[in-house]
């Protein structure tokens, strides 16, 4: 924590709202480029010594995630219904700490494919959706994907997947050692003529840029990495930003409003400190990277006489087109021990079904991976859903833990305008701010795709010789940690919130970059793309700042 300290009254070049996967990258890039930068983060700053392998804390209570007691949410699937409080389980789940959700992510880091950016042109429109091309192509983003792999740190094997998009550089680290789940996925998939490949993971397989290699503890999934081998921005971008002497990371700083002047330009942000005291940080420009839920929330809450529907919302699209991705699950039991509780979550992936195929009768595609079960208490609680939940038969099932694995099938979500993050009209958070209201109903194609991919997962596990294979029920989702599409990027100010450089169409010195920027959902694993966007956005924002074009 060697960073610069700035006064609120100092007009810094940039204030960045959020220190997560995107905010951490943008702060580092802007500070390295020579700009004074203040990052405001809702959560506190933890160190590796604070991290624990504690399932009760991290999975059953708000260990490092948004606390439903202080930050309640409401949910509805019918946009004409009144949303009801979600209680202990928020609808949208994200880490609230310096480093954001890059602290607790699983670290699956495949790149989006070329098709993801131009799918609307290839397939045509889909009625009732905002299915659109992106204003940028894969080729424009490729250098930044490479930057993520090298600067953030991704392990993988270039050329291993015949479906991989073109790349200019190999991965900086080889893949992590294969696990039994990966071997079995590979075995089953190859029997079926598919093309499994080593999973790209944002986890060090060997020392990289001052951080050590993974110790294979098994607690990536929802936990923070005390070894600092997982490539969280807390361990790479944040300290590098601070080392420039031009960046302050201000934790426990909850931004509640972006203010504008008579010309409609942003002047800075109002935030609450840990004691609830209000401050105003002046800045020449504001970058919001607060995630796909908190970014639209902040803009909607920053309404004014000039911006009555929320800041930068002339399109009326802020908060809309929320996309979750759907992950259907297959559970499998094998004859011998896999011991999936050891090491990283995923070591093999199948992309043979990535592209949509109109012959299937629905839109959608996805990636299939082999993974951990997950850890003991969460794994065991799931058992009661589909079999004996007590007695000798239950005890026998508990003993199957080392022989179990999961295949997760990650799919598309279509952008539907009524799926949205908005401000709840009545419920307030502990600071008196309007709570997040989530409206979400999976498009029928998303569910059809989830079933299709799940069937492929079942086939792979059967081909691998599983003793038992079970499908987790596919239901409409009311929960996600993929928060995508709510301030979409586009060339037309009437149909998008930000332009191709992440500048809002309405406010010239206000930029947005995080999951909210995505135009389509990809096939899951969005953080890699969010960070590639962040590197690219920071490059252009710095360019504009130097040219006096902000």
């Amino acid at each position, binding site marked *: 924590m060697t960073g610069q300290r700035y006064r609120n009254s100092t007009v810094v070049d940039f204030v960045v709202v959020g220190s997560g996967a995107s905010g951490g990258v943008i702060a580092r890039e802007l500070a390295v480029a020579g700009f004074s930068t203040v990052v405001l983060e809702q959560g506190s700053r933890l160190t590796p010594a604070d991290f624990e*392998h*504690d*399932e*009760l804390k991290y*999975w*059953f*209570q*708000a260990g490092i995630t948004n606390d439903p*007691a202080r930050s309640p949410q409401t949910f509805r699937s019918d946009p004409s219904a009144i949303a009801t409080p979600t*209680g*202990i*389980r928020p609808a949208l*789940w994200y880490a609230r700490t310096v480093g954001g*959700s890059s602290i607790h*992510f699983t*670290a699956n880091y495949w790149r989006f494919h070329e098709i993801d950016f131009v799918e609307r042109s290839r397939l045509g429109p889909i009625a009732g959706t905002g299915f659109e091309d992106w204003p940028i192509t894969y080729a424009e983003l490729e250098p930044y994907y490479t930057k993520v792999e090298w600067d953030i740190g991704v392990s993988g094997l270039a*050329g291993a997947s015949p*479906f991989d998009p073109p790349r200019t550089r190999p991965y900086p680290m080889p893949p992590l*050692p*294969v*696990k039994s789940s990966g*071997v079995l996925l590979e075995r089953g998939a190859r029997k079926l*003529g598919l*093309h499994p*490949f080593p999973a790209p993971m944002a986890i060090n397989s060997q020392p990289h840029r001052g951080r050590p290699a993974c*110790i294979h503890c098994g607690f990536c*999934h929802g936990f923070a990495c005390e070894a600092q081998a997982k490539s969280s921005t807390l361990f790479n971008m944040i300290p590098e930003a601070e080392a420039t002497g031009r960046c302050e990371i201000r934790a426990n700083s909850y931004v509640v409003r972006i203010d504008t002047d008579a010309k409609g330009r942003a002047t800075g942000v109002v935030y609450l400190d840990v004691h609830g005291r209000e401050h105003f940080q002046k800045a020449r420009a504001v970058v919001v990277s607060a995630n796909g839920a908190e970014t639209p929330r902040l803009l909607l809450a920053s309404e004014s006489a000039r911006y009555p529907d929320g800041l930068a919302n002339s399109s009326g699209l802020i908060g809309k087109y929320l996309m979750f991705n759907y992950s*259907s*699950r297959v559970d499998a039991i094998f004859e*011998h021990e*896999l011991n*999936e*509780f*050891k*090491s990283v979550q995923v070591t093999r992936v199948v992309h043979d079904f990535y592209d949509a195929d109109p012959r299937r009768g629905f839109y959608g595609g996805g990636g299939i991976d082999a993974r951990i079960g*997950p850890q*003991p*208490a*969460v794994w*065991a*609680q799931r058992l*009661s*859903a589909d079999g004996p*939940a*007590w*007695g000798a038969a239950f*005890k026998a099932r*508990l003993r199957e*833990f*080392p022989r179990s694995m*999961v295949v*997760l099938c990650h799919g598309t979500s279509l952008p539907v305008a009524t799926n949205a993050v908005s401000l709840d009209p009545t419920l307030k958070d502990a600071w008196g701010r309007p709570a997040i209201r989530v409206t979400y109903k999976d498009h029928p194609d998303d569910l059809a795709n989830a079933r299709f991919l799940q069937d492929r997962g079942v086939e792979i596990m059967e081909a691998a010789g599983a003793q038992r294979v079970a499908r*987790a029920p596919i*239901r409409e*989702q009311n*929960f*996600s*940690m993929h928060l995508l599409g709510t301030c979409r990027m586009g060339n037309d100010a009437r149909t998008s919130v930000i332009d191709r450089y992440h500048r809002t169409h309405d406010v010239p010195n206000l930029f947005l970059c995080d999951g909210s920027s995505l135009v389509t959902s990809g096939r*899951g*694993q969005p953080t890699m793309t969010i960070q590639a966007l962040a590197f690219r956005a920071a490059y252009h924002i710095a360019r504009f700042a130097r040219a006096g074009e902000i």
Partner: protein
Amino acid sequence: MNYRDDLNALYSRRAMIEGVLGLVGVAALCDLATVRATAAEARSSTKLRFFSANEATTIDALVAQIIPTDETPGAREMGVARFIDSALAGFLSPLAVTFRTGLTDFETNCRSHHAGSDGFATLSADQQIIWLHQIEHTPFFESLQQLTVLAALTMPQYGGNRNGLGWQLIGFQDLHAFSPPYGYYDRDYPGFSAQEPAL
């Protein structure tokens, strides 16, 4: 990252959400200091903190049917009832009234179906099992089942999973640093070789 589906499945247990955690004052739930204090007390005290002696006897008999003791330890040896007792007195205290009502109803119902019996704990093992098949889908029992799993498999510092017996049952190794090979199937893996796509 993607653990949504796991969590979905976890939270889809309506009993867990609405029967147990949904009624909990979340402020209390999220107060880790309280959890720790609860756990510390659970370890240091043998006195019941929430249940009456009779209630504790019923709970002990119930959890012993959820994870029975056979040639290996069960819920009884794992300290499951103790975890639940201290949790309801501590971080799950806002649930206490609902849980107690469910427990009382369970006992009343059980006695009314077993004339002359002195409660679930006094039934024979066979009678207990037959009765549990009747009521296994009630919110009370489903909640108790979920709490039993939580008690048996979370860190021993919280009072359950005594001496790691729960982890031992399922074959989890509490080591937190491993090296390959991890399991049977990756032992003689020959290494990855790429294939051409079949077009």
